[in-house]
């Protein structure tokens, strides 16, 4: 008898649980869809890549500057244009061999300069803190630059010190850049942000004889895949800001 009671109780419990679930599903059918608001201009942001200023201390051979301009649409989508300038200037002395009485060295000087521009968008994935940003972005990058090597001296066993003629070439390079980053409003309308970047070069900028040391805006010319980071300070001119 106890067994029968237990069986009925179990069946009742299972049925009630199922009915409750069905009722829940039925309610879901009537949940109102989120109404999409039209995109609204929330601000125009100007930024400077402050990470580039570390070159003064840590890469004295290089000077590069980068600035950003973006259009904030409802704190969700950002149309972005970034551009800058880069120049490299250094001389190298390379020890080839060394004996007690003699040392063989090759030398050269290298200069490059060029500009770059990147156009794309950012997508903010934050919903809770709409004035801040945590999201992903995509850019199309283009760089135009030239580089020169001169004072190329080779110390050869048979020929002694040989000076080679100056080399000079100009290039265009194109790449795609994906980013993941954050921007926080540290003061009113002033933002600090960083982003991790993956750049993939897909056209130009390659030369089997005279490969560029640095492609402005892209990085090391020897690699087609480049990982980088940027650090920006922005000022936003607000429009239609929520009270």
């Amino acid at each position, binding site marked *: 008898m106890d067994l029968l009671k237990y069986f009925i109780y179990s069946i009742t419990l299972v049925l009630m649980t199922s009915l409750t679930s069905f009722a829940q599903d039925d309610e879901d059918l009537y949940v109102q869809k989120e109404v999409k608001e039209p995109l609204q201009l929330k601000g125009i942001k100007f930024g400077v890549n402050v*990470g580039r200023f*570390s070159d003064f201390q*840590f890469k004295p051979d290089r000077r590069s500057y980068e600035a950003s301009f973006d259009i904030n649409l409802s704190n969700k989508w950002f149309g972005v244009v970034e551009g800058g300038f880069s120049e490299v200037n*250094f001389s*190298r002395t*390379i020890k*080839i061999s060394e004996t007690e009485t003699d040392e063989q060295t*090759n*030398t*050269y000087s*290298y200069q490059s300069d060029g500009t770059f521009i990147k156009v794309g968008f950012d997508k903010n994935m934050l919903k809770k803190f709409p004035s801040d940003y945590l999201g992903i972005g995509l850019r199309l990058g283009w760089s135009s630059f030239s580089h020169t*090597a001169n004072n*190329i001296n*080779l110390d*050869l*066993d*048979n*020929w*002694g010190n*040989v*000076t*080679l003629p100056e*080399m000079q070439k100009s290039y265009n390079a194109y790449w795609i850049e994906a980013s993941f980053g*954050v921007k*926080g409003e*540290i003061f009113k309308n002033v933002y*600090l942000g*960083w982003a*991790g970047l993956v750049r993939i070069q897909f056209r130009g900028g390659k030369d*089997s*004889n*005279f*490969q560029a*040391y640095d492609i402005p805006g892209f990085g090391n010319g*020897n690699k087609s895949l480049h990982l*980088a*980071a940027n*650090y920006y300070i922005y000022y936003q001119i607000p429009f239609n800001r929520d009270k």
Partner: protein
Amino acid sequence: MKNIIYIFVLLISVITISCGDGECNLNTDSLLTGTFSVEDSTLKADLFLDSLSVYSTEWLDTINKWNLEENASFEFSLSPNDTITEVIVASKATTELDTLTFRYQNEVVFLSTECGFVVNFKIDTLISTYHLIDSISLVNDEITSEENGLIKIFYL
């Protein structure tokens, strides 16, 4: 949230700044290897093979091959500023000289910032006189910093 951001910025900065240039670990010499081979060591080559010299009028030094053994070799670079290099093979035992004339193309290659520039060569023609030399063979006409070119010089 903002503390996490700042710490991450600091870490990324340190990682980025740590990436510096290193030393050159690549070979920067583009050399042509020549080998001397004797087809029959009992013949007249015996007279001069142990006292061979290789030189050019433009070189600083002469390559001397005393006590030459079979398949002994020497290495030199073609002129990086020219497309013709003449090399003379002489023997102390005789006044007869042989001249090897190389006609080639050269290209300057930027290996890397650490290693600088090298000159690679592609030999188009090799001409020789045959006073002491019996024959020559251009085995590898591409001379790069990664792989030497190769000529074989045969004596009877």
